């Protein structure tokens, strides 16, 4: 299905009202995840509720396989797909700046073009800075190979500003999403629900299908998705830690990259890089085998684009590490930095935003849980 045909927000809210009313009267799926207890607190569903519930959903599919009203039943209830479509609307709706919400319409293209542009930019810059002889020379670590091709100041300026921009854009998106839920910012910062949400997010608590694992990629429950996501996420965090340690080395101790194989940044980076290879490959593999009933096909590009960028980041990073004293270093450095720059710049405009909205939704879930239930008599 082309992205242009995806249902609009209004149509989705109406369909959500219909579907959520069925779920609210049934409640059989209550034990699978946080979505169902959250929807049972409501008798009607606003646009804000739909954004909230959609981002609590992990698209595991357990509820569809268990659903007595799933197609071909005349109620045509496909909860996971509806939530997936609604999530895409969340991403568009709360993007900052607002006009970049359109990036989610054909996200696979956007991410690919951004990657190509970033690669071209970095290659062009290195070509301008370093002569071909320097670019294609083999440098020993002792010669400070990286900075022979790219100046440290340029790196810091480019990535530092990209990083700050991304943080700001994501904070703005979060802020708009949170305002849409009707909760106060002070409630978000309350330590108890915040800690509970962090705990859930760190362990991917709800990627367990109520105990036996998600029905992902097919009807048979499994923990594969949780494990591959852990490898991806913690791999990413280790890489981030490697960069942070290296920054401390550079500015605090004045130790210049490249660092030896046994150094902390390299060890962290290698471990993270391995996670960031196996995790994304696993997620892509699972995704390719995914039951088509459950997904919103217009979002395949977005999902695959982000995972592919993560994978390219780790592959180019590892290649650079092991080949940094060869003539390929210049090429690999430019490729790696181009990919990382693209990854950074597309964070607020790609699949990564799921982390922001899901986490916010989890915090809200824990805030609501501490409130009394609506006064509804037993059936």
């Amino acid at each position, binding site marked *: 299905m082309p992205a242009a045909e995806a249902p609009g927000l209004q149509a989705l809210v109406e369909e959500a009202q219909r579907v959520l*009313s*069925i779920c*609210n*009267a*049934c*409640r*059989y*799926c*209550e*034990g*699978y995840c946080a979505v169902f*207890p959250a929807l*049972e607190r409501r*008798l009607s569903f606003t646009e804000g509720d739909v954004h909230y519930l959609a981002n609590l959903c992990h698209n595991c599919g*357990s*509820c569809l*396989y*268990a*659903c*007595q*009203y*799933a197609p*071909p*039943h*005349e*109620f045509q209830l496909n909860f996971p797909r509806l939530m997936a479509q609604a999530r895409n609307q969340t991403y568009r709706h709360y993007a900052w700046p607002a006009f970049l919400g359109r990036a989610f319409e054909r996200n696979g293209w956007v991410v690919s073009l951004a990657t190509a542009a970033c690669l071209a930019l970095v290659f062009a810059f290195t070509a301008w800075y370093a002569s071909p002889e320097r670019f294609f020379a083999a440098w020993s670590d002792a010669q400070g190979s990286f900075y022979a091709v790219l100046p440290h100041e340029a790196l810091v300026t480019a990535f530092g500003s990209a990083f700050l921009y991304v943080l700001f854009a994501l904070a703005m998106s979060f802020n708009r999403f949170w305002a849409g839920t009707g909760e106060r910012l002070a409630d978000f910062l309350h330590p108890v629900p915040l800690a509970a949400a962090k705990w859930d997010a760190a362990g991917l608590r709800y990627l367990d299908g*109520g*105990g*036996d694992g998600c029905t992902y990629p097919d*009807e*048979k429950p499994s923990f594969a998705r949780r494990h591959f996501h852990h490898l991806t996420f913690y791999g990413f965090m280790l890489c981030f830690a490697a960069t942070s340690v290296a920054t401390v080395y550079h500015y605090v101790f004045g130790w210049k990259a490249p660092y030896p194989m046994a150094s902390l940044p390299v060890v962290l980076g290698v471990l993270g890089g391995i996670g960031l290879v196996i995790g994304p490959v696993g997620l892509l593999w699972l995704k390719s085998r995914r039951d088509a009933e459950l997904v919103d096909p217009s979002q395949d590009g977005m999902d695959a684009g982000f995972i592919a960028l993560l994978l390219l980041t780790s592959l180019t990073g590892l290649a650079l590490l092991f080949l940094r004293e060869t003539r390929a270093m210049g090429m690999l450095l430019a490729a790696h930095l181009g990919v990382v720059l693209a990854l950074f710049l597309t964070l607020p405009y790609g699949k990564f935003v799921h982390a922001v909205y899901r986490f916010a939704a989890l915090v809200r879930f824990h805030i609501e849980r501490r409130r009394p*239930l*609506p*006064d*509804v*008599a*037993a*059936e």
Partner: protein
Amino acid sequence: MDFSRDFDLLILGGGNAALCAAITAREAGASVLLVESAPRHFRGGNSRHTRNMRTMHGAPLDVLADAYPEQEYWEDLLKVTGGLTDERLARLAIRRTEEHLPWMRRHGVRFQAPLGGTLHLARTNAFFLGGGKALVNAYYACAEALGVDIAYECEVVDMSVVDGRFESATVLHAGAEHRVRARACVAAAGGFESNLEWLREAWGPPADNFIIRGTPYNLGKVLKLLLAAGARSVSDPTQGHCVAIDARSPKFDGGIVTRVDAVSLGIVVNRDARRFYDEGEDFWPKRYAIWGRLVAGQPDQIGYAIIDAKSMGKFMPPVFPPVRAGTLGELARALGLDAASLEATVAGFNAAIVRGTFDHTRLDDCATRGIEPPKRHWARAIDTPPFFAYPLRPGITFTYLGVAVDEKARMLMQDGRPASNIFAAGEIMAGNVLGKGYLAGIGMAIGTTFGRIAGEEAARHARG
């Protein structure tokens, strides 16, 4: 599917009881063919609409709190059936439930804490994670892994039973008839509630206004064949689990969401805008199951549950929005009722209320005095606009007419002898235990107990 193979056991039906029998028999070494008339998507009969099993337990068990002793379970059953039950079979079904829970877990079923709004069942009923369809999916996966042969969209059109002995069944599959031979047969094909013609025979023209809450595939074909072959019948064709559900529900398969829980909070009137039964007789779960028959007894088999703004949102949310109006007159017109009659009924009801302290969590002292029928509890004036109404129809969940069985799940013939190699389990024999009335979660208890027994006994019979 090779129907000409020589099977130890042929299982007719594909719901909970059939699957329990198939798994048990296969684990005992029997070769098993299970034929399910529904397509894969709608497999599982009415089990796909269930959500829990009433379970006896002497101490906290799995998701179940406290204890639910055999005697209490038995007395609960006695109350709803008014004694129309076979105590030996009922106690057998009850006693076995305790060992079902670990057995079910071993075969892939998962449980969850009681659902929102069902706390009153926390002690007695074990809820399936994801409900009955998830249970059915787990059992099918288990049966497939064990090597049970399964044929979907496979309909039983004839059975050859000679002097109480099953010889073969003729099944229709993919447009061709096949004769299937087996050393034993388990009939677990449900009741006849989806057979509108048969319902009409039993109930007369009112049956046309019944809604079938469950599967459209329970046409009673196997039941009819067995009765024709000389099986002894139990219960009668007008008995079943029949509740009042939203009149706007689909004709078949609407399941749990079609219930309307507003009855005890307001009044229920018929086509003539008259009340006809005490809406506050007892707690709703206890009295829930009588309203189907009550509405079936009204002209045109229709009722209207009417509440005012005070009660809105105080009951489990129904799937369809209520009919809403600013005045009782407008509400009557929206429902097609006579406005003056409805206003008079409500005025008479409101005037008869004795002031009390409203509390819908107990049998409170808000009652009426001097009107017929009375409302014994939770009677509050219907006076706060807007007013809301839910139209009600009789909703049949399942029928009790069935074949008689003994403790080994062997089908009994008219002379009282057990058939040598025919066993029955589930809805098709539930009438042995449930002569009338209903107790939440007992259908799955009967199905699981007699399904497992039938599988065990049939395998023993077939394998010698």
